């Protein structure tokens, strides 16, 4: 039985020997400040993501996950190697890809509707049509009746819903998500994850999702790529043998394949987390993971 509902026919995103070095400082997040002159963020990433796949990149903080996503988005260019989308090299940003950022990145002077319309303004010249599309996408993410709210009147989860609606409204083939739920509280995160899964299923997007949470990875991904500590490489790609229908079942997190995959990913990730523990943030995460994962807790504390 084929557990994957995506079609394994076409490669949508392809990364060939991609490296990225920064001369002055990192990309400003994941504790990259204070790192001296030349830093290699990515050390040869090879990856192929199929059309319609939900692909999660899992890695310790500061391993270059976000750097990789920026490259796919076309916001920066690789030092060497190539990213291809539908076989064509990425040269810059494009509306075939839409990005959802951890910090929401909403325009505070625009309403929820105005924010969703923002990206559409270059694609859809007709004002009424634009408004109709934006309203539709707001209701798709469950924000009916919040059209006229400004970002500061919305909760963190709602803000991220607006950002997701804004990304979807562009009708991109690919949704790039950079730790989108890291800043919202745990309960909201679970709901957002479920909704995202439903939306990804309904809209048949190819999703590239960055996270440092194993649970999030197992719950969402068709395949998980574990990234090594800096300089980031793909350590291993793991298939998650859960159908999307199974995932939306309440008991999925105690199901056999969920627990096994989760544990396997933890063993893969553990050494990378330890390796990248020179930043304090990672150390904290190591402990958190240690408590929650089955084995391995004790020797994490020893470090």
């Amino acid at each position, binding site marked *: 039985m084929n557990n994957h509902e995506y079609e394994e026919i076409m490669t949508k995103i392809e990364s060939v020997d991609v490296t990225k070095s920064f001369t002055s400082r990192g990309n400003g997040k994941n504790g990259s400040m204070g790192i001296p002159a030349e830093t290699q963020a990515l050390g040869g990433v090879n990856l192929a993501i199929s059309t319609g796949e939900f692909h999660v990149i899992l890695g310790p903080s500061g391993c270059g996950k976000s750097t990789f996503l920026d490259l796919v988005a*076309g*916001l920066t260019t690789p030092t060497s190697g190539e990213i291809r989308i539908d076989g064509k090299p990425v040269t810059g940003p494009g509306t075939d890809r839409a990005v959802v950022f951890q910090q*929401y*990145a*909403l*325009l505070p*002077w625009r309403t929820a509707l105005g924010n969703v319309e*923002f990206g559409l303004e*270059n694609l859809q010249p007709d004002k009424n049509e634009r408004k109709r599309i934006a309203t539709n996408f707001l209701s798709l993410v469950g924000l009916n009746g919040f059209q006229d709210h*400004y970002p500061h009147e919305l909760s963190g989860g709602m803000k991220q819903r607006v950002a997701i609606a804004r990304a979807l409204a562009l009708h991109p083939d690919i949704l790039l998500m950079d730790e989108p739920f890291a800043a919202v509280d745990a309960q909201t995160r679970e709901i957002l994850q479920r909704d995202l899964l439903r939306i990804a299923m309904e809209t048949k997007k190819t999703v590239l999702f960055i996270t440092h949470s194993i649970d999030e990875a197992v719950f969402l991904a068709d395949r998980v790529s574990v990234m090594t500590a800096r300089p980031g490489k793909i350590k291993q790609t793991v298939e998650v043998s859960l159908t999307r229908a199974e995932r939306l079942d309440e008991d999925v997190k105690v199901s056999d394949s969920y627990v096994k995959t989760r544990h396997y990913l933890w063993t893969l990730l553990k050494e990378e987390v330890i390796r990248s523990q020179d930043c304090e943030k990672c150390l904290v995460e190591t402990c958190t993971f240690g408590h929650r994962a089955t084995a391995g807790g004790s020797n994490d504390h020893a470090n």
Partner: protein
Amino acid sequence: MTTLTDNHVPSRQEWIRNGVFSLGKFSRRFIHVTGAIFVFLLIWQLAPYIGLINPIIIPVPTTILQKMIQLILSGELLVNIAVSLSRVLIGFFIALAVALPLGFLLGGWFKSFETAVNPLLQVLGQANPFTLFPVFITLLGIGELSKISIIFWVCQWPVLFNTVTGIRNVDPAIVKMARSMGIGKWQMFKKVLLPAAMPSVFTGIRMSAVFAFFMLIGAEMIGASSGLGYMILQAQATFQMPKMWVGIVTVAFLGILFNWILLQIEKKFSGWKEELVI
């Protein structure tokens, strides 16, 4: 004892609907915000009777009002207002026309150049403009040009510095988001940088409006033969105290009015800003 039959807490909208805009509450609010001024005027008016001030030097409000009406009717006050306002507005708007684009360029596109010239600009901006006014007179003569130029000079700095700051402090996440949508340079400026910098830009504009009036009166007192500053100094020299006070009050009113107009414009642009509740 009161019993809580309805523990409904009114929302802000209800407050506005039932509170501020109903007539009875409105007049209460009016008294609330103007009460201090009325009490001050009342004390001023009564002060000579209890020997607190000498009405020859500091005339009571009613005397000043009388004189003001008289000067309005004779046309003298209005002419001086017109002269002063035209100096302020011309200097102010030239400053906006120069400093706004310059600020956007320095803050957005020529960052390293801005870093290089910033200390120089700070020094120039910090130089006391009153000390520079004689230089302006020497270079540009005693006519309108030197006065408008010195007003332009003081107005440009707050606008320039605040515009640069505004552009520099735009949330990088927003810029990154806009870039990820493949937005062009002009659109980036129009739809992202400009609105994001607006609050800071307006702070600069309102600061320079205050400076403009400071400098106006200074310039008119140092070297002018018309305008409100000249009128005040002239009245003082000829010991026409009520007339002097008319000038002082008029300048204060014009400053308040100017600032109010700017605030209304600002509200239009940044009405989205979160209200601060402490």
